[in-house]
């Protein structure tokens, strides 16, 4: 496969790179090092710019009014968008817009009117409620939130944890067990309005990512009608599974973007900083760290573009997505760690973005399926029916 960007892709890459350097970085320098939002007036001004660039709503499919960006180009742009302090989790502070949750595009027409279109217009926000206190890596078995039939609808009882944006969203997609005897095939996906009686955002969950927080949810006799079932009863898990797989590719790209930014900082510092009468860049110990960074970045980029290319062609990409997510999150963590080591004491301070990337990159080895689950997926392929 040829991963060299086309002329059109390179033009878009250059455009986004300029946007990050000329618009995002100067604003970011004035914000708190852990900020995850721009002041409203700057956000408005910059979204007008991304609209003028034709890139607003970058993840919205073309048939719903989004720009016509294929997943390979999306990966290349995601790598650029992540190259600033907040870039790992809030690339360009959301000024390229969001698409909402992937599942909601699979909703029926009535649900699309009530949820999808208002989301695309920026009138509604959503949360994704899958993980529970009983576990997140194996949600098909771990889900204990129950939904029981009652009065032409369903009553939900249970809890969810590590749910982002539930305190700000107008609705969410929530997975609950509707048939205890069927295991994986007994999970249904519901759309829950945040003002539904019995839905509670109980607390904030603080994590390494101090710029943002997750929440813990409680469902206490929370009744919803049949109209709130997304897809088919007992087939909810397939919806989540698809989302988790697809998201691994741009997720990996974000890790690569931050790794590139950290690596470039380390190179610049090594060329400038002298110790004991010699530049760091002249020392083999530092050179080898930079070489290892280069290899980690190139490896992750290769596998991520391979996964994106297979997805673009409509080929199976589950294994490739796992390899991409694994190499980018683990390699990205190593790159940031080495960049901090090369910077010495300065690397530990909030004066530089490295410490934030270090904390946030650590989460990436767990989020969207931990490294162990990715390895399990790959191992199944190696040891299973497709033995090569």
């Amino acid at each position, binding site marked *: 496969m040829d991963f060299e960007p086309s002329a059109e892709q390179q033009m878009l890459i250059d455009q986004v790179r300029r946007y990050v350097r000329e618009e995002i970085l100067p604003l970011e320098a004035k914000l708190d090092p852990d900020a995850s939002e721009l002041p409203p007036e700057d956000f408005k001004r910059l979204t007008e710019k991304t609209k003028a660039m034709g890139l607003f709503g970058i993840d919205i499919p073309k048939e719903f009014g989004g720009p016509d960006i294929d997943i390979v180009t999306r990966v290349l742009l995601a790598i650029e968008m992540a190259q600033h302090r907040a870039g790992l989790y809030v690339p360009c502070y959301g000024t390229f817009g969001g698409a909402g949750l992937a599942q909601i595009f699979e909703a029926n027409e009535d649900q699309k009117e009530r949820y999808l279109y208002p989301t695309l217009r920026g009138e509604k926000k959503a949360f994704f409620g899958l993980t529970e206190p009983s576990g997140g890596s194996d949600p098909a078995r771990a889900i204990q939130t129950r939904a029981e039939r009652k009065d032409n609808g369903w009553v939900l009882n249970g809890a969810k944890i590590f749910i982002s944006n539930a305190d*700000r969203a107008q609705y969410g997609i929530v997975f609950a067990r509707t048939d205890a005897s069927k295991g994986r095939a007994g999970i249904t996906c519901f759309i829950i309005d945040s003002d539904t009686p019995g839905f509670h*955002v109980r607390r904030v969950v603080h994590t390494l990512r101090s710029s943002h927080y997750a929440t813990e949810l409680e469902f206490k006799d929370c009744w919803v009608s049949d109209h709130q079932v997304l897809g088919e009863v007992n087939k909810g898990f397939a919806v989540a599974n698809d989302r988790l797989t697809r998201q691994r590719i741009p997720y990996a790209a974000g890790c690569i973007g931050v790794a590139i930014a950290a690596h470039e900082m380390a190179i610049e510092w090594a060329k400038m900083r002298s110790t004991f009468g010699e530049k760091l860049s002249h020392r083999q110990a530092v050179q080898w760290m930079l070489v290892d960074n280069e290899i980690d970045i190139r490896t992750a980029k290769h596998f991520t573009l391979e996964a994106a290319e297979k997805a673009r062609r409509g080929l199976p990409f589950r294994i490739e997505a796992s390899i991409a997510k694994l190499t980018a999150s683990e390699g990205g963590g190593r790159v940031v760690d080495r960049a901090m080591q090369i910077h010495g004491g300065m690397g530990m301070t909030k004066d530089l973005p490295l410490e934030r990337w270090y904390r946030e990159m650590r989460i990436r080895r767990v989020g969207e399926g931990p490294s162990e689950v990715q390895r399990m997926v790959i191992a199944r392929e190696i040891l299973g029916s497709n033995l090569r």
Partner: protein
Amino acid sequence: MRLRLDKPWQPLTAETARRLPGQLGVYQVADARGTVLYIGQAGARSPFGLRSELQREYEERGDGCQFRVEVNQQYRSRWFELLMVHQADHGSLPADNAKNPPPNLGRLSPS
């Protein structure tokens, strides 16, 4: 970590502010009756963290107020949490936060 800041109030004076650590964290300022007027954060741009912020509060407010602090590396998410808990408990933000509320503040219903 407790959800609400429930340490005893200390009088806000030049001396008590001066003795504070230069660390990151969150704080509350209240009037003499204990009504919370403001929930603040000492972020990484504060030259001396909590000390700088409470010294500034004293200079702006003068005598007659009280305060309490919590040293916390997660000062931003903790600050959002305290604002949301206050809103849930009292139906509104503290008076001085309400003048300039953070955009997109969420809502909690703590048990």
